[in-house]
């Protein structure tokens, strides 16, 4: 059985699930500090709840910035999030789905 998520980790997982795809956005939406968000992202990537991929270099070059690392939720992550939602009622009050997805093209 997969380990149960802490509340902070569940918030971060839900935020990724809502379409906020990289660390800075997650920090902005959740208000959690960088020292919490990034280790949690790595733990959940190791646990298979998240999948990470690098942005295409061409897209980053168009905006004259380095390529970002994007995270997306996996099927296992969705199951863990559903389990977390049943335990943490406050998760339901968190921000809704992002309207536009980040460009990965």
């Amino acid at each position, binding site marked *: 059985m997969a380990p149960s998520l802490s509340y902070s980790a569940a918030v971060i997982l839900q935020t990724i699930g809502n379409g906020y795809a990289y660390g*800075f956005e997650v*920090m902005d939406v959740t208000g959690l500090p*960088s*020292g*919490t968000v*990034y*280790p949690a992202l790595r733990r959940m990537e190791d646990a298979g709840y998240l999948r990470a991929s690098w942005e295409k270099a061409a897209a980053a070059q168009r905006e004259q*910035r*380095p390529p*970002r690392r994007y995270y997306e939720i996996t099927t296992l992550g969705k199951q863990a999030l559903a389990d977390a939602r049943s335990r943490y009622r406050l998760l339901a009050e968190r921000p809704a789905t992002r309207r536009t997805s980040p460009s990965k093209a």
Partner: protein
Amino acid sequence: MPARWIVIAASLLVPPGQRAEWRAEWEAELAHYARVRSARRISTVRRSAGAVIDALWLQAGQWRSLRFLLRNYRVSATAILSLAVAIAATLVGLACWDAMLHRPPGVPDPGQLRSLHFATSDDPFGAISYEDFRTISTRTKAFTTITAYPYSVSSGLLDFHGRTERFVATEAVDNFFAALSIQPVLGTLSLPRDGGPSGDAVVISEPLWRRLGTDPAIVGKTVRINGHAATIVGVAPASFRGMLFVWNPDIWMSFAAAEAIFGNPPTQVTDRSQRWLHIVGRIAPGVTDAAAAAEVQNLVAAIHRQHPSELRQTVIVRPARTTPESERSWITAILATLVASVLLLLTVACVNVANLLLGLALSRRYEFSVRTAIGASRWHLILPQVRESLALAATAGIIGYGIARAGLVWLSSYRPSIGGFFPSPAIDFRPGVLVTVIATALITGCGLAIGLIVAWRSTSEGLSLAITHASTVTHTPRTRLRNGMVLVQMAVATLVLVALGVTVSSLARLQDAPLGFSSRHLGFIGVNLAETGYTEQTGPSFYERARDRLRSLPGVEAVSFVDSPPFLGGWGLDTVSPAEAPAGTPAVRGIRASVVDRQYFTTMGIDIGKGRAFEASDSASAPEVVIVNETMARRFWPGTDPIGRQLHIANHDRSVIVVGVAADGKYDDIDEAPAPFMYLALSQHYLPELTIVVRTTPKTAPAISTLVDRLRDIEPRLAVGNLGLMSLDQLLALPLFFSRAVAAMVGTVAGITLLLAIAGLYSSTFYSVHQRRQELTLRMLLGADVSNILGLALRSMATVAVTGAIVGLIAGGALLPLVSSLFFGIRPVEPLVILGVAAGALMLVVITTMTVVWPLARRGPSLQAMR
């Protein structure tokens, strides 16, 4: 970009296989932060600090060593805590240094800001008159803008829509905020020039605005300051803490407003001999400090040609700093002592941690031997130990940073109740980027040094033997290292004890210093009659009625009036000369003078050595009289009787007759040198704003609020002036505040150092005695008693510890002559302090050794110990 360097440094903690990707991700994130930062004010440095935690988390997954530390959690926790305390103290010391001596004032583009000083033979960082400032500001080309402000504040009570607040106010010229590029939170920061229209305009600080209820429409509203109506024209941002040392003003006002509200003399803006303004300016691009100084020097010379009576002044241009140049030397000395002390403290903590880890390393000798036997190189054995100590140091660093930051945030907003003032500090002590970088380097350095020492020692002692003699301990090299550590700790602890002894002795002497007045049960009440309609004709009768009313209360022994009590400043300054001095004799400037009534000397307990105190006959129509202090009498009439002599006072060009000589006293600071001082008679100089001094009996003294109630029986509208209500203890808190703060600071550092040294000494003794357990048991079996065993242990440990203490005493004795002048009443040689510290250090060694040895010796020989 510091944030990028933090990420690069943190990437070294990330396992090599993941490092490149990790850095790429963080650098991409930081690039994004930097883009939105200006819009959202996000601190990239703060956010990049998360990279360190992220990197540590990644590294933690790799480290077997961390598991070892967790298994030995007691030792790890002790090491982390002692290191964290030392790191916190180091950070506090460094942050104080940075905030007070290094960091420029909190204004935009501080690099262009310069302070202009006008040195005279009396004052190397002198001020300038208002008229001279105006002349220079209109003619200078070397500065794009210059502005002026005094190093003084006034305090009082303000009333805003029924809400009463204490405040600290200061004055500034009209372009003060514009020259410093300070933007308002609300309204405008432009003060009226020279009392023009809207002379009652004041700017308030953001903290005061918040205390008044954060009214967004406060601009244009009226506030009553010490009873005077003033209009709030703007709110200055909280990030601007003023240009004054220590004081963080709540209110800035024009000179005209200060004249109306605080009764400042109008001559301060018209009289060129009143030099009270300090100048800062923005230097023009491409102009050097020397060129700017030369240009202003020429302007000063031109002023001197027009006004030959002006003092000759040498212009000095320096980069503007939070701490004024005149205060920097002694603050540097004190902060240097503090930083040296905390670095010593950090050394002690590192030695302790190394000692503890050396002890732990013993239990791993077998593991290391096996790994060596199967082919591990020495580097493979050293690396995990270095990682452990780095992890310990990083954890201690994070805890220490948290402790220090909390303390510094508290210190930056601390509002002590000193006398009638409630100032908040003008200095932001929170650690900046520089301090964070230095602290990170120090923490890393400590971790590396501890790790390398421990690893080198634990892998250099015949590891192959340990497989066959796993329980054998090789003594000599480690004992030498351990003894060296004990010696260092004792030396540092003793040195810090010397510093503590000097500080406490100085404070004790300061508190017992003769003040020039013998009364100790005094209360002070500031009153302002001008606001209640009293005039020069009606005011004196109020004073007489107030005296009678208060004097009739049980517990009141004497009542008197003075313009300003000691240690609160506010004295008049006069230029005087003996009337009979030969023509051409230069007058003495800046003689302090106080206006007092005829009971003042008996109320305060000031001795009149010669002549008399003021009398009823010294009326406004009688010849003006003066009482001088002993120093002034000696300086003006050496070897002769000053009674009956005449003094010429430049202000209003008048002559006064000396009728008495009062004992010398302390007027502005407890540690000030004897200086000339004179008293003028209240009956000849009516003042509407005075302080009532009440001497009470020790046991039946009425509360000061009761005294005020009785005064309001006479005059219900009486305004309690800017001094408010305070006792002598509160009054003395002002001059003693800094000395007490320094004593508390040194005491804290000394206490922590001592605790760490005791812990280190205890662990060393404990370890050493337990290493020799077999030998000691054998000796007991052969007939040695408790005293023999104690003596043996004392000889082995105490020799090293006492040597360390002697080294510390010698260092303390050598440093004392260099710093003795910084402390009140401390001589270059302080035998009592040195002897006291020596006795304390000796007791420390004996008690620590006995605490370890006593239980072992009392239990007697144990067969288990022989196994």
